[in-house]
């Protein structure tokens, strides 16, 4: 289903329609759930105030009365036995010349005839502000604010801001956040009010059970996977390195490529269909050591949200998922220093106020332990650096400046040419300004840049290398308008510029080596969405994202015909637009609250992707793959996803069960002709083949997020298939990441006040793989014959990791906190292969590719695997 095909791209009617619909829809009437038919008994001869209070107690109906106009102490006589509230109100009002009206879940008492002159609605006022960590001043994302009297609530947005509009009255506001003590604020709401509150982190006594706040129904659609750094630290890590991206594979629907790989696949999407953001800037290759480690250290992370569907409209650009990482802001209260000394790397974090409660800094550094001397002999070196400045100008203005730099360097000595090697670099810079216009309108304006560079060093001595670069600059503004508790609007604009160098050699090579044209793109995005609460049970989020994507010069573009032959060559001048796409991404999701503990959710979304990784690799490691933009020859990828789910809390709110099913169709999917030339090929578009893919599956997740035993069990069944022109004779085939079954366990257990045990176990069906069904001989070589693509499967993948944290502090009194973390990766030494080979032979105790074709070498079936059992230890400290 293509809602906005290229041929219709001149017409903006769908966007205009949706915008009009969104703006108008909040004026529609809403069903009220005040039950005036409820039977109660009440006999009294007393004040109006007392009567209304008694009715309220028996019927749970709230009353609002204007004390300046109505004396609530005037006497009323009533005698009712098992009568409806309506009957009683009629009697009361007739005695006092009053009338009643149901508005916004309340019964408004007013003078008779008054509503004809004035607006029926009682005055409403807005409570807004932010919620912070009391110890550090960090803004808390997703913290809950609930007005207990109305059971209405909201959550803080990604910038810690909240706004809730309520009718005039007295309220008890409960502020809560997982892992923090609640805070209760009692207010008399008769004017717009700002409440900027701080929550203290909960100091859990041993064996204490945490009761989760009831959040059900506050947000429509599917909740993202959300976790904090502390959650990641409570997982065993490879060589003591706790990993954000790798920990995702413990969630159903997210599948890792395998050991030593940072690649992951979400709901049948390819590895390049996941957007990783750090402080809103994209990171294109979040890996170290070819994927053995992922880029971000948990100590630098404040919050991670993973969207498999129902992606917020202010984020986009990938088909399958978004990993939205927010870094820590720096302690506004006091200086802090922490670190971790491990086998693979050391990590250090320093933070503190420059000006208390106004300006803070945060710096984290991870560096591998191999050193420059070793690097000169050949070896590995990587680092991660995060910096952040956080300036709170006043309660309405806050500015952040943050940056990330991660680099890998891998070199081996060369005899004649100096070192040969690979290095890659990710760097981002984000400048953010949060501004509160008023208690209903919040804005976040961001400028960010991102750069990814990959170098294959061919001769360090001669300065010869191959380089791929992608850079991006973005200016955007996101606005949140909290119209009323039932309607929140989010809208914004986003201007992007992209530059692609899809892989070129440096100077000093043969002049005959072709130059691969560099590409430039500019992009504008407008989006608009609304969260709408309909009654107590139903909430809907809907909206659309409109994209304009323009390829610009200077570049050379080779235009291909349908047979992949060059039909024209465009030499484009600087700044000139030579191709434009306009597309719309509509999204809608709804949740229905069955009761206080369970919710049904469903949604549809379209996602678009304009940049793609040209990778024919089946390796788990990052390789010389290049990013290229959509253009005349490459249509943007599109996906339509339908999902439905059910979630429930039970066991005194300690357990969460969620089940979700999805069906996704993906269009303009990219594959490559057999044995393509993707490297240094200016006509690389000729190597591409296009088609569709589709995936479906069901996911179950049982979580116990708090308590002495914490963790989760996940299971998913999923399939993904492709149908691409010319590939597999045009027949459908499973993708290499088609792994039907996935079962995961991840638990931590507080054995004592000083010992915590950690474990996770992961099982997935083996990846699809292409194996020969026969062989033929040519030039003395045994050449495989394949019947179909991905006809076979690798053995099932499973792995058990365990760990333990030993707290070296006997009491909580000392400021210097330190602990040891022990890990054993792949406890039972499972040999999980990532490749099967049929072309090697044994020679002098090694498995090698035969060279001498006269030998008639006996070939072996072999498998390649990584990582046996690996124990590790790290020392962690903080003060």
């Amino acid at each position, binding site marked *: 289903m293509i809602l906005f095909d290229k041929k219709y791209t001149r017409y903006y009617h769908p966007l205009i329609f949706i915008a009009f619909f969104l703006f108008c829809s909040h004026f529609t009437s809403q069903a009220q759930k005040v039950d005036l038919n409820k039977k109660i008994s009440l006999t009294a001869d007393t004040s109006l105030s007392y009567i209304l209070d008694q009715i309220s107690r028996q019927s749970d109906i709230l009353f609002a009365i204007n004390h300046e106009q109505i004396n609530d102490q005037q006497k009323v006589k009533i005698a009712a036995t098992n009568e409806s509230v309506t009957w009683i109100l009629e009697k009361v009002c007739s005695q006092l010349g009053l009338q009643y009206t149901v508005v916004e879940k309340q019964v408004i008492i007013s003078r008779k005839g008054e509503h004809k002159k004035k607006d029926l609605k009682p005055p409403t006022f807005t409570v807004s502000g932010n919620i912070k960590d009391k110890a550090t001043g960090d803004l808390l994302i997703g913290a809950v604010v609930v007005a207990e009297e109305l059971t209405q609530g909201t959550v803080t947005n990604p910038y810690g801001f909240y706004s809730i509009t309520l009718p005039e009255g007295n309220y008890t506001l409960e502020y809560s956040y997982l892992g923090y003590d609640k805070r209760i604020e009692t207010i008399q709401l008769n004017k717009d009010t700002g409440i900027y509150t701080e929550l203290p982190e909960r100091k859990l006594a041993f064996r204490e059970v945490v009761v989760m706040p009831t959040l059900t129904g506050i947000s429509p659609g599917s909740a993202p996977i959300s976790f904090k750094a502390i959650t990641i630290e409570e997982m065993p890590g490879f060589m003591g390195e706790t990993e954000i991206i790798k920990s995702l594979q413990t969630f159903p629907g997210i599948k890792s490529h395998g050991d030593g790989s940072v690649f992951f696949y979400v709901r049948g999407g390819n590895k390049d269909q996941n957007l990783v953001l750090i402080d809103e800037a994209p990171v294109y290759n979040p890996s170290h050591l070819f994927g053995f480690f992922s880029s971000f250290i948990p100590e630098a992370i404040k919050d991670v949200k993973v969207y498999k569907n129902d992606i917020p409209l202010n984020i986009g650009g990938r088909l399958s998922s978004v990993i939205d990482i927010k870094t820590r802001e720096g302690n506004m209260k006091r200086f802090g220093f922490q670190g971790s000394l491990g086998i693979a790397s050391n990590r250090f974090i320093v933070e503190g106020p420059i000006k208390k409660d106004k300006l803070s800094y945060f710096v984290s550094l991870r560096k591998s332990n191999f050193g420059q001397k070793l690097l000169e002999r050949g070896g590995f070196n990587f680092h991660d650096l995060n910096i952040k400045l956080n300036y709170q100008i006043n309660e309405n203005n806050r500015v952040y400046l943050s940056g990330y730099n991660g680099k890998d360097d891998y070199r081996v000595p060369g005899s004649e040419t100096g070192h040969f090697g690979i290095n890659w670099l990710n760097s981002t810079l984000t400048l953010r300004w949060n501004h509160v216009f008023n208690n209903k309108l919040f804005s976040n304006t961001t400028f960010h840049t991102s750069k990814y560079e990959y170098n294959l060093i061919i001769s360090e001595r001669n300065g010869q290398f191959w380089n791929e670069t992608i850079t991006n600059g973005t200016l955007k503004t996101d606005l949140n308008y909290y119209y009323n508790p039932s309607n929140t609007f989010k809208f914004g604009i986003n201007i992007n510029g992209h530059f692609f160098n899809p892989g070129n050699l440096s100077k000093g090579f043969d002049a005959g080596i072709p130059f691969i044209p560099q590409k430039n793109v500019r992009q504008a995005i407008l989006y608009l969405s609304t969260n709408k609460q309909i009654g107590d049970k139903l909430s809907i989020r809907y909206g659309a994202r409109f994209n304009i994507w323009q390829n610009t010069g200077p570049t050379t573009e080779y235009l291909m015909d349908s047979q992949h032959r060059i039909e024209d060559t465009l030499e484009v001048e600087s700044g000139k637009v030579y191709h434009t796409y306009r597309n719309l991404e509509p999204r809608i999701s709804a949740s229905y609250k069955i009761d206080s503990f369970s919710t049904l959710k469903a949604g549809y979304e379209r996602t678009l992707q304009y940049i793609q990784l040209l990778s024919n690799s089946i390796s788990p490691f990052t390789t*010389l793959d290049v990013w290229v933009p959509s253009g005349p020859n490459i249509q943007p990828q599109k996906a339509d996803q339908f999902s439905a789910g059910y979630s429930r809390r039970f066991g005194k709110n300690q357990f969460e069960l969620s089940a979700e099913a999805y069906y996704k169709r993906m269009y303009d999917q990219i594959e490559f002709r*057999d044995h393509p030339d993707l490297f240094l090929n200016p006509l690389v578009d000729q190597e591409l083949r296009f088609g569709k893919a589709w995936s479906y599956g069901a996911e179950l997740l049982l979580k116990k997020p708090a308590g002495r035993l914490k963790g989760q069990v996940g299971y998913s069944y999923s399939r993904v298939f492709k149908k691409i022109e010319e590939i597999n004779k045009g027949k459908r085939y499973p993708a290499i990441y088609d792994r039907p079954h996935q079962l995961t366990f991840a638990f931590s257990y507080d054995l004592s006040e000083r010992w915590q045990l950690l474990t996770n176990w992961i099982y997935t069906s083996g990846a699809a793989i292409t194996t020969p*069904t026969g062989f033929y001989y040519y*030039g003395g070589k045994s050449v495989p014959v394949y019947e179909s693509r991905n006809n076979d499967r690798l053995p099932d993948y499973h792995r058990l990791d365990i760990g333990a944290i030993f707290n070296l502090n006997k009491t909580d009194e000392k400021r210097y906190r330190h602990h040891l973390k022990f890990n054993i990766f792949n406890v039972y030494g499972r040999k999980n292969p990532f*490749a*099967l080979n049929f072309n090697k032979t*044994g*020679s002098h105790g090694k498995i090698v590719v*035969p060279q001498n074709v006269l030998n008639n070498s006996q070939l072996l079936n072999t498998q390649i695997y990584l990582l046996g059992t690996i124990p590790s230890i790290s020392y962690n400290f903080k003060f």
Partner: protein
Amino acid sequence: MKQLYYILFLLVLTACEKRVDWQLQKGDNDLLVVESILTNENKIQTVKLTKAVNEINAAPLPVSGADVTINDGNSTYVLSEDPQKPGVYTTAAPLICVVGKTYELMISYNGENYSATTYMVPVSRFQPLKYIQRPDGKYVITQISPPYSRKEEAMYTVYLDWSRVPGYETIDKGKTRALIYSYSFNSLSTNQIFAPEKETIAFPAGTVIIQKKYSLTPEFADYLKAVVSETEWKGGLFDMMSANTPTNLSNNALGFFGASSVVSDTIRVR
């Protein structure tokens, strides 16, 4: 301590490879395989016909009784099966193929007809291969051909013979001769750059080396690149998607009917 880290990482990053029993899925392998390279050498030209096999290491089944002809636009050459080598069809007399002609191969076998056409491009001279001496006194080749050449794609064969070197005369000839292939293509692949380790062939001083360079048409180069991608370059840490090799033969036959200009050089290792 740092050396320990280094060793540890090498252990971790060095992938382990082990033999495994693997049951291949069944496929239709009743396919004709054609192996033939016409050259400008003054020699009997051959066409080798076999069948694909179901199992790894299974001996190729020769195809006997086929009718094989080659037409160069002027003449048709009928090839006959070598009685000593089943499945190998030879021209009746030496045939020098030339640049500028198109050669058409016709095969009739079991009621099925197969055909292919090819042509020849010129070849340029080449630099001799490079070899070095190891500490044990034997030699190993370090480079036969540049792996990348934008200007000219080529195949190289290196025949090494040390069966007449003193001390090696009595050793089984299978262990004193080697034939190695090498290629220059006009593109590079990741699995080529990070190709798996190859068998080492060490030879003594006195070894005779015959090196030949074959010109390749773009189609023949594409075919050979696919062949090495599925054989020599397969099994490294950065593998590409497996796929069947292309062909210029009709009727689902496998292999390639090629034509190459050849230059050669002979050296003795000293």
